[in-house]
């Protein structure tokens, strides 16, 4: 059957983690090297299927079209509702960490 999947390098795992901004412990990086290799092997069966000229499907149901409503004002959430779950706020604003690297923004 299939060969033992080749484990990812530490750098490969860290590169993907940086792309999705997910912090990982060293232990998690280590186990993901094997687990991701296993998951990649699991889906590699796709390579054996001939899809020459086949259109990709992004949506399985034909006739589902983007629903549009009339462009008329309607009731929306209140500011208090929108901010009700904010971890940090200042007045009616969400407070965010510095986006540039020089202290709080």
């Amino acid at each position, binding site marked *: 059957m299939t060969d033992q999947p080749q484990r990812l390098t530490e750098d490969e795992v860290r590169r993907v983690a940086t792309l*999705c*901004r997910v912090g990982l412990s060293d232990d998690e990086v280590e186990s993901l090297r094997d687990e*991701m290799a296993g998951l990649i092997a699991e889906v590699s069966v796709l390579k054996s299927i001939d899809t020459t000229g086949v259109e990709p499907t992004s949506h399985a149901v034909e006739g*589902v079209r983007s629903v549009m409503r009339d462009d008329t004002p309607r009731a929306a959430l209140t500011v208090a509702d929108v901010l009700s779950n904010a971890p940090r706020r200042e007045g009616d604003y969400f407070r965010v960490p*510095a986006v540039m690297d020089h202290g709080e923004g």
Partner: protein
Amino acid sequence: MTEQPTHYQSIRQMSDALVAKEISAAELADVHLKRIADLDGRIGSYLAVTPEHARDQAAAAQSSIDSGNASPLTGVPMQLKDNLATRGIITTCASLMLEKFVPPYDATVTSALASAGAVLLGKGNMDEFAMGSSTETSAFKPTRNPWDLDRVPGGSSGGPAAAVASGLAPYSLGSDTGGSIRQPASFCGIVGLKPTYGLVSRFGLIAFASSLDQIGPLTRTVEDAALVMNVIAGPDLNDSTSISRPALDYTIGLRDGVKGLRIGVVPEYFGDGIDPEVSRLAHEAIQQLKALGAVISEVSLPNSTAALAVYYVLSPSECSANLARYDGVKYGFSTPDAPNMMTALEATREGGFGTEVKRRMMMGTYALSAGYYEAYYKKAQQVRTLIRREFDAAFEKVDVLITPTTPTTAFKLGEIQDPVVMHANDVCTVPANIAGIPGLSIPCGTIDGLPVGLQFLGAHLSEAMLLRAAYAYEQASSWHTQHPVL
């Protein structure tokens, strides 16, 4: 069905008793709240119980009943999976990321049920962000299978399935991305319906994989599933993928039987990895449907065997995009004092997401990243087209396809550690999500005291026919009258 205790009655029976004033809505809610208090410590099907909210809704429902304005769900209690937004009621998605999240709005299904007079008992446990097949990835607690407390209820809608199977709610709503309604329904011996993609609004469903997710009912009878569908199915301007289709009464035609109904049996779903006893019970059910007048033939779906691989490319990819919204700024888990935004994002997700969610975000990001997109994501979408076409062709020859719902009965907690082995649970259920078609699971027997599910698949928007076929089988069998000993 006649001698069932109150907590095992069907929605229809409860509704009839309410209208006949044999019980009040408040009493019916209290029967369930007491049973939850007595039993759920052992089962773990609820993440939150909402007695005050239930009593308020029961009082409103009673007014409707007293003034002769009751519909079948009026005054009947229910549970919602904890990924469905409930205004003012904590909605965690079983994740530390949303441990304290209180939605400022209701999901469309939540408000539709409330308008119909439903009484919310609480929120059902699930795999974190609906990623899992055993409810073991819940950040808060496992749920146990009421038929054997050492076993999982399935997942990700394990809380809803266990609650309905053990009489802790007459029905619940779950979500199904790759089998998350049908597989737990199968493991817990109840009815689970994943409707056609787009038939039930997903506004207020916390997104996992947006081209696959669909909300549907978990119930103890087929008629109950039809009654719930009558309320939750329909177009919604708040869901851009909602199907425009007039309301339908799913109970009409339920009793019309299966005489002449063309049923296809797919050999690919009875092959390697399927427990021979599960196959045997499914074939017995097929013979019973034949005896009821259905016409059975064999239909091969060779591309279905690739559905699992398609699923485990598309769903993590879409999950990695959907979960990018958790930034620790607007709501959710947040680590204080990060020096900058990038560090804050990484720390928020490191602390807020569990292992399975991180793994799927990583796999999805990998599949979408430069150099791999064509080989994985685009390829999976092309194979998805082949699978969809294969179903389209099958439904020109037959009305309904029948398969086992799951390869095995419920496994033990902690028994499956390898994610790839866990994925094999979904082998019979993912094709329906890939093709966007409806699928229904119904109990068809037990193996060593554990329930086995039979799956009916149909063409897009064929829910009424699936319900009719399942109803015919249910009425000719007695599995729905059996309940776990607790």
